[in-house]
């Protein structure tokens, strides 16, 4: 399993592997939003939590189809399915690799983009913590969506349609935590709910994703 993780990470780092693409997208979004809504600090501060979370969401979505598609095309997914480790474990490891290459960089970059968007001072801690807690859920849910659409030739667009509604609870609680932090309100409740979603989807969705993969590999 560790070998699989290392392999996935290496593949992602390699040129054309998509590493950094999500990050660049996140940056572009943070530049485009002020250009669209105007430079007033007050407006930007009010929408910054939502924009940062939506940016993280879309940046995650961008690299989801890489989780299984390449392995499906060259047949290594068939090998993984017959390997001694359970397919559920493969899904979990692949989601983890996706999070390490996409989610974690987003968490680290978010405070810098927060400055661009004039995010109020007290919210930085909540921003990092909420993204740290929430982005693993984005990767796991995304892995499920990728497993559903892996057999389709043009599955990318369909996958967005399937995955984005599933992201709703994560987005709501994550952005809520940040905007409460910006207003100086207590943030424990949304953070706990966010952690609950991450824990629940990490525990259960690999099984659903592995089921979908087996169906697609039949």
């Amino acid at each position, binding site marked *: 399993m560790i070998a699989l993780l290392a392999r996935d990470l290496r593949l992602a780092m390699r040129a054309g592997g998509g590493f950094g693409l999500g990050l660049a997208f996140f940056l572009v979004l943070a530049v485009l939003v002020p250009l669209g809504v105007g430079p007033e600090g007050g407006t930007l501060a009010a929408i910054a939590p939502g924009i940062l979370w939506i940016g993280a969401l879309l940046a995650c979505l961008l690299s989801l189809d890489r989780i299984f598609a390449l392995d499906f095309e060259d047949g290594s997914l068939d090998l993984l399915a017959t390997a001694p480790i359970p397919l559920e474990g493969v899904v979990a490891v692949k989601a983890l690799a996706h999070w390490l290459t996409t989610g974690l960089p987003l968490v680290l970059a978010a405070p810098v983009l927060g400055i661009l968007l004039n995010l109020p001072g007290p919210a930085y801690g909540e921003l990092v913590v909420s993204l740290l807690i929430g982005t693993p859920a984005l990767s796991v849910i995304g892995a499920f969506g990728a497993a559903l*659409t892996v057999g*389709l030739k043009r599955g990318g667009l369909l996958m967005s*349609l399937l995955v*984005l509604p*599933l992201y709703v*609870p994560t987005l709501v609680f994550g952005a809520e935590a940040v905007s409460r932090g910006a207003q100086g309100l207590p943030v424990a409740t949304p953070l706990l709910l966010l952690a609950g979603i991450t824990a629940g989807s990490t525990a259960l969705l690999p099984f659903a994703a592995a089921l979908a993969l087996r*169906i697609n590999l039949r």
Partner: protein
Amino acid sequence: MTPTPRPSLWEYANPVKFMRLSDWLLPLTAWLAAAAIAVGLVWGFFLTPDDFRQGSTVKIIFLHVPSALMAINAWAMMLVASLVWLIRRHHVSALAARAAGPVGAMMTLIALFTGAIWGQPMWGTWWAWDPRLTSFLILFLFYLGYIALWSAIEDPDTAADLTAVLCIVGSVFAVLSRYAAIFWNQGLHQGASLSVAPGTRMDWAYKAPLYVSMTGFGLLFLALVLAGTRTEIRARRMKALINRERMQG
């Protein structure tokens, strides 16, 4: 001597038996649905008094509540049918779930439209991000994804399996989204209670036509799902015949 099998509900999982049953059940439900909806809506539109607070807009309830009810029930039926398909592999069940998708989506759309038109004079806005409205919009997105996944996959059994998995996972997330929406709105705008609360001491003058209309929408849903399932069974048979022709060259 073989014991005669006890007749059970699962008998109708056989496509041939289902076709025979729906041959007479479909026209029956269709006509009953048409009659009940006609009675309910005509009664509601022409023969109910105005509400002292909401004026004549109260008449929209005879469309809004039944369609909202069926929007949720359609998803619940899809969930049950998906589970039946995954556990017992009855093709009719999978096809019934597929047939229910567009019907449920349209019911959601009607509920949203009537809600918007009702909200305009009552709340002064076409759309408010009220938890109920928001969760219905999200439910609509789930329907769209479900329908899109069905039509995207070529192989019928794979499509049935994957959409069933999506339906089950989607149900969990739809419920989560509902609670997230409640939390979200109350968190942002405290005390903004826009809900109409139709249950509070409604007079029988409204209740009676509402129940008739609800029955009508339920029967309509049943009729449309029966018709859609028949179509899907025929489409499946057609595909099989075409494949056999190709094999024979």
